[in-house]
C-alpha cells in the first residue's frame, strides 16, 4: 500500500517536472525584462520623473519592462550583468562589449545626426592649442576607471601617458563648461551633445570658449542587447516610440527625435 502511494508521488513529481518544459518558457516570456540606462549627457537628475514617463510608455505597449536609469558609470557597470538590454554611450560598449557579449541594436538620432564628437574647450586665459595643454587643469565629467581610456581614445592615441594635464573631475558636463568659462580651470572636455544643450540653454556660458581640439565622430548613445529574449519586439517598441504621446515625452527626456538602425557600430 505504502509502495503504491510512494510510486504515485514519484510519477506525480515526474509529470510536474516534465510539464515544466511547456509552462516555464511561457512564464519567463512574461517575466519583466530589465532595460538598464546610463546616458549622462541629456537625462540629468530627475530619475524619478524619467522612470514615471518610461513606465507609463511601456505599460501602454503592454510589455512588462523594468526601466532602470543609473546616474553613475561605476554603478552602471556593477548592475550590467543583471540587464537584458542597455541604453548607453558607445564608449562604454567599447570598454565592456566583448566581455558581456553585448549586441548593438539601435542608435539614437537628433536633427538627423547619429554621431557626436568630443571637444576640448579653452577658456579665456586657457591654452591656444591642444599642444599647450601640458600642466593645465582641465575640467571633465568623471568617468571613473575608464577616464584615461576614453580620453586616449578621443584625443591622445599615443598611449596611457599621452596627456600631461591635471584632470579635475566634475559631476556633470555643465560644471566643466562653467569652470572654463569662469577661469577656474584652463580648459574643459565635453562632448557635442552636452555642448549643444548648454549652448541652447545658457549661451552666455560658451561665448568666451574656443574649441581647440575635436575628436573623430562617435555613434550617439544606443540600445544594446545583453542577450534579451525577444530583441525584435524591443526594437519595434523603441522604433515606434514617437507614435505615442508618452513615447514622445520619453524621447524628449533623452533629447532625441527617435531610434534608428545603424549598421556600422
Amino acid at each position, binding site marked *: 500500500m505504502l509502495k503504491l502511494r510512494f510510486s504515485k508521488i514519484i510519477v506525480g513529481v515526474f509529470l510536474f517536472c516534465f510539464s515544466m518544459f511547456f509552462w516555464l518558457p511561457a512564464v519567463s516570456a512574461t517575466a519583466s525584462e530589465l532595460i538598464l540606462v546610463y546616458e549622462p549627457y541629456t537625462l540629468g*537628475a530627475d530619475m524619478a520623473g524619467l522612470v514615471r514617463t518610461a513606465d507609463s510608455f511601456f505599460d501602454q505597449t503592454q510589455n512588462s519592462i523594468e526601466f532602470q536609469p543609473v546616474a553613475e558609470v561605476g554603478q552602471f557597470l556593477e548592475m550590467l550583468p543583471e540587464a537584458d538590454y542597455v541604453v548607453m554611450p558607445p564608449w562604454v560598449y567599447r570598454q565592456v562589449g566583448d566581455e558581456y557579449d553585448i549586441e548593438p541594436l539601435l542608435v539614437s538620432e537628433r536633427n538627423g545626426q547619429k554621431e557626436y564628437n568630443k571637444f576640448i574647450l579653452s577658456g579665456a586665459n586657457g591654452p591656444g592649442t591642444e599642444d599647450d595643454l601640458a600642466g593645465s587643469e582641465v575640467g571633465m565629467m568623471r568617468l571613473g576607471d575608464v577616464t584615461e581610456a576614453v580620453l586616449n581614445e578621443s584625443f591622445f592615441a599615443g598611449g596611457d601617458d599621452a596627456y600631461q594635464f591635471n584632470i579635475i573631475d566634475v559631476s556633470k558636463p555643465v560644471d566643466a563648461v562653467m569652470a572654463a568659462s569662469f577661469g577656474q*580651470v584652463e580648459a574643459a572636455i565635453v562632448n557635442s551633445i552636452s555642448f549643444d544643450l548648454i549652448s541652447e540653454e545658457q549661451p552666455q556660458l560658451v561665448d568666451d570658449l574656443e574649441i581647440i581640439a575635436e575628436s573623430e565622430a562617435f555613434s550617439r548613445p544606443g540600445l544594446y542587447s545583453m542577450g534579451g529574449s525577444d530583441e525584435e519586439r524591443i526594437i519595434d517598441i523603441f522604433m515606434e516610440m514617437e507614435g505615442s504621446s508618452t513615447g514622445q515625452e520619453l524621447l524628449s527626456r533623452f533629447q532625441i527625435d527617435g531610434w534608428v538602425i545603424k549598421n556600422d557600430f
Partner: protein
Amino acid sequence: MISKFFYGLAKTAFFALILTLMLPWQSYANNQETVLVLKSEDLRAYSEPAQAFERSLEGRENISVEIRDIELNLSQAREILREYRDNPPAVIFALGAHAAVVAMETAPDELGREIPFVFASVLEWEEYGFNTENSTGIKAQVPVQTLFAQSRMVIPDLERLGLIYSPESEARVTEAKAVGEEMGVEIVARRVEEPAEVEAAVEYLSNLETDAWWLPADPTVVTVDNFHYVREQAWNLDKPLIVYSESFVRAGGLVSVSINYHTVGSQAAAVVSDILDGAEVSELKMAEPVGTEFLGNSRVASTIGLDLTDSARFMDRVLDEIEGVE
C-alpha cells in the same frame, strides 16, 4: 688556514652581493614620498574629498597617500604626527579647520620643520592667518557667479534676487552685489542684526518685486523657526527659494548649490601634484571650488508652479519629497 681565508672571503662576497641586491629597494624606499591627509573628523564633507584625492593620485608613481582622522582632538593629532617624525610627509592635505590649524601650528613642532599644506572645507579661512608662503587651499563656498549661473538654469529670467543677511555674511553679500552687477542680477538685500528681526525682513522683501529669494549660509538668519517662516512665505508668493545645502532642499527650498566634495578632492590632488613637481607654494593662489552639487526639489517646484523637467538636465539630483510635509 687558506681554506678558512677563502671561506671568509666567500662569506663577505655573499653578504656584499645581498646588500648590492637590496640597494635598488633601499633607493626605491627613499624615493617613496608620503602625502598625509588629515581629516578633522569623520564627516562626509571630509571623507569624500579624502577618497577622491587618493583616487586622483593613484596613477602617480612613488607617492603613498595616507588618510588619518584627528577626531577633533589635538593629542590624537600629535600622536599621528609623531609617527611621521623620522620620515615626514612631503605635503599635508588638511580637511576642515581643525586639521588645517594642526598642519599650521602642530606639524612643525612634531615633525621638526614646516611641511607645505593644502587645505579645504575651511569656512572663513582668512581668519586663521595661514602663511601663504607655505600653504594654499580650495575655498569652501561656491563662487557667486557659479551660483547665479546655476540658478538661472531654473529661473531663466532671474534679474532681481532678494536676500536677508546679518553682519556674518556681509562679505558674501558684497561679493554678490559686485558679481550681480556684471551678470545682470540686482541684489535686493535686507540686513538684520539678530534672528528675531528676520520675520520683519521677510515682510519687507515680500512687498518688493523679486524673481527669487536666496538664503546664504548665515547662522544668525537661518534658524529652524526662521527657515520655516521664510519657506512658508516663499511658497505663498510662488517665490523660488535658493538655499545652500541638501537638508534645506529636503525641508522645502527649491534648489541648493553647494560645493562638490568629490571635485574638491580632485582639485586638491592637482594642487598637491604641482607642489610635488616643484611648484612654489607661495605662487599657488587659493582656488575657487570647481563644480557644484546642484539639487532641486520637484515637489516644491509644483507647489510654486514651476517645472524642473528641463533644468533637471543640469542638476545632480532631484528630490521628490518635502520633509514633514505630506
